[in-house]
């Protein structure tokens, strides 16, 4: 049951001061009790207690945790969605598979169709009603959405979002407030039947009840019944410690009387329903029936069956003693007693009770921990929130935070990252060499900058160091595309066919020390095209290029694309001598995947207060940009990198689907990276040791295959590289960087490259001329 803001904002009824007549009319107990208490401990004492009660009852009664939600699944005709992904999402939401998917939180998925029934939910842009719909799925898309009963088309709908975590009050109390009108009447009836039959008529304490309990206890020779009213129990939960002193008993009695004097039964009962302690999980204390329903059954209270309601009612007497997970037998006996009481008092028909009695305990076996299932994502959310919200507000104001997480992407990312890294360790970790290998990954949507999934540890459930955000690691060659992009924005001077010098040289660094950049294989290749230097990740040629255009230009490009740092413009920057987190790398790559526009990374869409008012909206914003023609040319080369360059394992794994990206390996194999994108996602993977120990892994043999695994899991949407009207394609001799027009040429290696703004080489390559029958004749070709 969703939290209803109305129940919290509604004004408490005014205390009935001065209604002496009513009090006298009530006659007996209230007055006598109050007088006795007053005589015993003085008016001041009563006054104090009264003030305490009013403060507690009329202010904000409870510190409510902030709830953090994933993005809601939007359903509409044309949406890319497989039956498998839909099922993943619905199971994450604890939907039940039923034959017709007609009840709230139920679904049924067949080959090409699905039925499901959602629950109403209030979003930042308004309420979304419940929907009971049928989807037709085919070709990886939703073909239609129609109402299950009327058959009418549904244009667009949202499924309620997955709760991905809560930010708890410091005392650990967790509750979902319920409005008394939304609580099943069987639950209330059963509660009164078993705990306090005279609740509606007593005035806070119940001498008849006390007497009956005393007799029962005397007969049994031990405590078998309590004589406390619900009001007393509420007071006990609300204000007092658990010690069993006489003073405490007296306080409790006086406060119960005062509470009944000031507030009506409805309010007291609603407070009880939300306050009573019903379970514990680690630090997290479960209070109220709304939260208990989720805690034990992972469903809202109004969807529970009779036997489930009875179990929760039974827990009010002692949630630890009757804990259904630890003491199922005891819990069942207690539940059955509640069910019997329901039959006895006529709350439920005998037949229904019999059926409920025959039902086993079906408490969800896994105790939902207070800890989030998605610690890295939640950590990122908290970091962003900290900029605008005080910790105390997050812990107590019942805020609702809507994030960008796509649960299907997140779950697939986790699963494939684990599989991929395990495979690397299996294949390359002989002799336990890779013990302690760590990993982190980020997936974002480049068009919006929204973060879809984050993993910060090789064990994605482990809530420790969040490497995706906190680890600052050298990025190595992952930075190179930005060096080349800085060059390619000036097509008059640089193209992919531009020859770069890949021969040994030594630079003087500012402090005077010499630096000799080396290639990974310690070879030098002389003149190479920029295309080859990037695709094969040559260091020496890249440093020369950076020197040529000016390293400060590279820094300035990185800042345009969202880098929030100011690295010194040293030549080693061109080889990635800069420490960044995987999230920062993803931010930079987004611009490459988004036509040159940087969008920044965002994890929060909206923050709502308890009354569903939007406190903050974090909207779409475009940051700096570079010309899209240069980006498109670069993307071609980065695609080639995944086919024939250092990332070539990717093409093999993804069966020719079109993606682009770059490997990175830092000195002594300390960090392995792959950063890349398809048409709808940017993904970044990092592998390494926390203590910076060398792993012996290159990005190409470790991070790249893991990346491919992840992309396969989330579903590749191929890049569309062709079709840019400002770009032409030209065959190029890779040895000379000159044009090749003949199919029948004598060049050793020819590659068709993209050129922006008519920037292709004008001079024909020697080998092309030689291969031209008109010029060189067939004779020479014969003896080639």
């Amino acid at each position: 049951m969703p939290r209803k803001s109305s129940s919290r904002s509604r004004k408490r009824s005014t205390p009935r001061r001065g209604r002496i007549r009513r009090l006298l009319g009530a006659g007996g107990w209230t007055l006598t009790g109050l007088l006795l208490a007053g005589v015993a401990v003085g008016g001041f004492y009563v006054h104090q207690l009264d003030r305490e009660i009013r403060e507690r009852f009329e202010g904000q009664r409870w510190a409510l945790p902030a709830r953090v939600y994933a993005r809601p699944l939007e359903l509409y005709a044309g949406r890319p969605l497989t039956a498998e992904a839909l099922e993943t999402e619905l199971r994450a939401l604890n939907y039940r598979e039923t034959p017709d998917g007609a009840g709230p939180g139920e679904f049924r998925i067949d080959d090409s169709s699905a039925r499901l029934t959602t629950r109403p939910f209030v979003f930042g842009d308004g309420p979304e009603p419940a929907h009971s719909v049928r989807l037709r799925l085919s070709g990886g898309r939703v073909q239609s959405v129609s109402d299950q009963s009327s058959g009418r088309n549904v244009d667009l709908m949202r499924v309620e979002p997955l709760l991905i975590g809560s930010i708890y009050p410091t005392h650990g109390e967790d509750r979902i407030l319920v409005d008394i009108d939304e609580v099943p009447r069987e639950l209330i009836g059963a509660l009164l039947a078993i705990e306090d039959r005279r609740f509606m008529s007593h005035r806070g304490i119940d001498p008849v009840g006390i007497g009956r309990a005393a007799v029962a206890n005397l007969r049994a020779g031990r405590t078998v019944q309590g004589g406390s009213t619900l009001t007393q129990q509420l007071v006990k939960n609300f204000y007092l410690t658990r010690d069993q002193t006489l003073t405490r008993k007296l306080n409790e009695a006086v406060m119960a009387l005062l509470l009944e004097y000031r507030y009506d039964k409805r309010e007291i009962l609603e407070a009880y329903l939300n306050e009573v302690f019903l379970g514990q999980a680690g630090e997290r204390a479960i209070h109220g029936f709304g939260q208990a329903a989720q805690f034990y059954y992972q469903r809202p209270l109004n969807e529970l069956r009779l036997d489930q309601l009875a179990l929760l009612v039974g827990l009010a007497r002692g949630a630890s003693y009757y804990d259904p997970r630890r003491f199922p037998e005891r819990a069942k006996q207690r539940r059955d007693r509640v069910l019997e009481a329901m039959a006895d008092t006529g709350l439920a028909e005998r037949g229904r009770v019999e059926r409920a009695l025959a039902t086993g305990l079906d408490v969800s076996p896994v105790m939902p921990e207070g800890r989030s299932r998605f610690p890295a994502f939640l950590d990122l959310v908290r970091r962003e929130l900290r900029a605008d919200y005080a910790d105390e507000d997050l812990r107590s104001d019942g805020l609702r935070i809507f994030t960008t997480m796509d649960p299907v992407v997140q779950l697939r990312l986790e699963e494939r990252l684990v599989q991929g890294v395990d495979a690397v360790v299996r294949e390359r970790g002989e002799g336990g060499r890779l013990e302690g290998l760590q990993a982190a990954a980020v997936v974002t949507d480049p068009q919006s900058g929204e973060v879809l999934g984050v993993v910060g540890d090789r064990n994605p459930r482990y809530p420790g160091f969040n490497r995706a955000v906190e680890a600052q690691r050298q990025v190595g060659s992952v930075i190179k595309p930005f060096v080349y992009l800085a060059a390619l924005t000036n097509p008059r001077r640089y193209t992919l066919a531009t020859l770069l010098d890949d021969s040994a040289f030594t630079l003087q660094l500012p402090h005077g020390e010499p630096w000799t950049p080396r290639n990974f294989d310690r070879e030098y290749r002389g003149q190479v095209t920029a295309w080859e230097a990037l695709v094969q990740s040559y260091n020496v040629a890249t440093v020369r290029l950076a020197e040529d255009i000016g390293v400060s230009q590279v820094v300035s490009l990185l800042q345009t694309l969202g880098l929030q740092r100011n690295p010194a413009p040293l030549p080693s920057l061109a080889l990635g001598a800069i420490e960044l987190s995987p999230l920062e790398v993803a931010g930079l790559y987004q611009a490459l995947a988004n036509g040159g526009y940087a969008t920044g990374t965002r994890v929060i869409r909206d923050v709502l207060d308890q009354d569903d008012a939007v406190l903050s909206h974090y909207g779409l914003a475009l940051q700096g940009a570079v010309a899209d023609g240069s980006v498109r040319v670069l993307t071609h080369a980065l695609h080639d990198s995944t086919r024939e360059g250092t990332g070539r394992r990717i093409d093999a794994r993804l069966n020719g689907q079109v993606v682009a990206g770059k490997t990175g390996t830092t000195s002594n194999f300390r960090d392995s990276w792959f950063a890349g994108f398809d048409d709808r996602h940017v993904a970044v993977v990092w592998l390494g040791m926390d203590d910076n120990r060398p792993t012996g892994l290159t990005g190409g043999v470790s991070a790249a295959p893991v990346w491919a695994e992840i992309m396969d899991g989330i579903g590749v949407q191929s890049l569309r590289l062709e079709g840019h009207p400002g770009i032409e394609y030209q065959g190029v001799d890779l040895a000379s960087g000159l044009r090749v027009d003949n199919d029948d040429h004598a060049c050793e290696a020819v590659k068709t490259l993209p050129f922006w703004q008519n920037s292709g080489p004008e001079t024909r390559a020697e080998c092309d001329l030689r291969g031209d029958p008109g010029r060189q004749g067939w004779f020479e070709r014969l003896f080639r």
Partner: protein
Amino acid sequence: MLVLALAACATPAPRDAAAPVPEAASSGSDAAAPEVAPEADFGTTPTAALTLAQQAESARQAGDTARAEQRLERALRIAPRDPGLWHQMAALRLDQQRFQQAERLAARSLQMAGDGDRELALRNWRVILEAREAQGDAGGAEEAREAIQRLEADIV
């Protein structure tokens, strides 16, 4: 004329970008061919996105720019390559007096649309003109005015 018109619909050079190399060509200045890729698949914008865009427009007309923004963002998540939606977002940012964003979003819309839709190009340039004027960018505004004149001449 055609060349001029084509140049006019080209994406304006990103004005706030760091130009890594001084002589970086500003696309659209003297290019003979249209500079931008038609990334959009006009036929494939789902009805849902258009419905949201309509709701956004109603909200905007009612003065509820916050709701308009949220609806449009939803639409863009559904159809991130629809240049019409990007234009609508640009116009909304103009309403919100977020001029720099208005200009960037309109430029993004131009970039996506390529030369496919002159009417849209004209509307985008008008947003750009207004945004540049509001930011006191006289030179940029003049460039936008010229682009608008060329497009108007061509469309009539």
